[in-house]
């Protein structure tokens, strides 16, 4: 459970990037945060994961302030998946996933045989065991993103945060990553995801919030949040939502009204 209470943040101590942020994310929920570039989404993301200190208010993880967790303690509760990046050394994908065991190893420890087997087991669960022996630097961007997700799962966290996990990926890999995120959500892991694609919210989210340069525009269930009015207000361009029914399921998507 994540509780953001009366939060505000400022880099210079004077001008707030955003303020009066109150967001409640229930245990097991899948939450998406949307907003235009530069509105402070990633700043909020880094306050939730404890890297940046709030100016006012609290981020409570299971009732305890995120800044009161030690780095190691937090890594057992919360996994973080950043945008995919390359490594300077050609570790195998299995070696990268195995790094997720680090919070359990202590100061001097190195991963055991059991840790390696667990890492492989996680890769099997996510259906990427074929990547295990391949060099992390030579697989595709989408595959790298899946390996990083496996690494976060390997930490056995209750919460996983995603910072725009699909932004550099092609159509198929976006779908693969989204499907993986949805499966993790179904396993009961609390998901917080920053997304550039409003359509993804309908795909996976239970609740969502929109943010623009003035702060949080709206926060609530997907139905409440995903309206033409809110999208237009958030992004500053006209947006139309299209609804259709296929195989008895309502499908929504939006597009800018050009």
């Amino acid at each position, binding site marked *: 459970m994540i509780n953001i209470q009366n939060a505000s943040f400022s880099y210079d101590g004077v001008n707030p990037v955003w303020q009066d942020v109150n967001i409640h994310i229930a245990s097991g929920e899948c939450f998406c945060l949307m907003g235009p570039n530069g509105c402070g989404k990633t700043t909020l993301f880094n306050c939730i*994961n404890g890297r940046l200190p709030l100016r006012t208010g609290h981020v409570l993880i299971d009732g305890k302030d995120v800044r009161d967790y030690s780095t190691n303690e937090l890594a*057992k509760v919360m*996994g973080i998946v950043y945008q995919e990046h390359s490594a300077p050394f050609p570790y195998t994908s299995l070696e990268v996933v195995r790094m997720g065991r680090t919070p359990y190893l202590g*100061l001097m420890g190195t991963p055991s045989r*059991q840790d390696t087997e667990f890492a*492989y087991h996680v890769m099997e669960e996510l259906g990427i065991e074929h990547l*295990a022996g391949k060099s992390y630097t030579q697989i595709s961007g989408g595959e790298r993103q899946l390996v990083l997700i496996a690494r976060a799962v390997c930490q056995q966290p209750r919460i996983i945060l995603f910072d725009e996990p699909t932004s550099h990926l092609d159509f198929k890999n976006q779908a693969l990553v989204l499907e993986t995120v949805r499966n993790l959500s179904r396993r009961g892991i609390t998901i917080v995801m920053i997304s550039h694609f409003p359509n993804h919210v309908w795909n996976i989210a239970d609740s969502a919030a929109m943010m623009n340069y003035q702060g949080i525009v709206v926060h609530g269930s997907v139905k409440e949040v995903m309206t033409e009015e809110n999208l237009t207000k958030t992004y500053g361009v006209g947006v139309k939502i299209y609804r259709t029914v296929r195989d008895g399921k309502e499908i929504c998507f939006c597009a800018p009204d050009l």
Partner: protein
Amino acid sequence: MMEEMKSSVDLSSIERRPRFWHWLLMALAPAVLLIVSLFMGRYWVPPGQVLAILADRILSVFGGGLPQTWPDAAAISVINVRLPRAVAAAFIGAGLSASGAAFQGMFQNPLVDPFVLGVSAGASFGAALAIIWGLDSFGIQLISFACGLCAVAITYFLAHVLKTTPVLMLVLSGMVVSAFFQAMLSVIKYTVDADEKLPAITFWLMGSLSNVTFSDLLIAGVPYLAAMAGLFIVRWKLNVLSMGDMEAHALGVNSERYKLLIIICTTIITSVSVAFCGIIGWVGQVIPHFCRMIVGPDHKTLVPATMLVGAAYLLVIDNLCRLLSTNEIPMGILTAVVGAPIFAWLLRRTRGGWN
């Protein structure tokens, strides 16, 4: 969750782990070379005498001994000259290589060497200062060691911004500090007596193990071994640090704390190395690359592998220094002459991309 699962495949086909004979070879090489070094030198001691001298020394530990069948000079040569020198070569090779591997991981860059934070420039300046003050060799080592530490401390505090030390800031600060100490060294070289002191400074900087004694090993050995143990202990964290500060935080690693610890350990190792035997380039950079080709990039195995291979490498180099010509060749020259072509070969083999 971890107890329930069963291993579904044989992971040994996926994992890139060095085989047993790799380790055996890597561990035997420095041991064999160390012993071989005792038999080699300009002063000829017959192999039988070397063995007898060694046996005598080992037996004397248990209160025994052999009747002396060798000249005193032979015993001095083997025990007081060759042995400490070979031990120093092995440990400096191991330390510089492990430091290089640690820095390459920490800086997320396979091209840095262990002197990147300015330790060699600081230590050279200190040595030059001690030489113009006319200090003895212990004084030179001490001042050189202290200046090496100082240079790295300045680099670290220059790079420290907002409670963090970004690796880019560290590299840039290291360049600044190196440039400053090199300039100060040039000032000394320019103003110093050109007939006597200047050659002493120049020769010192080129590096040599010729003056290492047992008491040197005892004084420097404790902090040096502690620093090497430190690097060995945190070797797994190097994998995590090499992914960057954000990723390290996500994996529960306080990267600032580990960076400081690694910098302290490598600085002790490199300052001691430079203080004892001058600037030995092309070891801390080349050996980790070479080892990565054998055991892979995982620092869990890479760090011990660099220690063993580095020790063997510098033993070979030191023997060549002693034997190739009638006058001893400075070690820094030979490591560059041998190291640069090896590096070129590695560069070709990996086609520039270290991946």
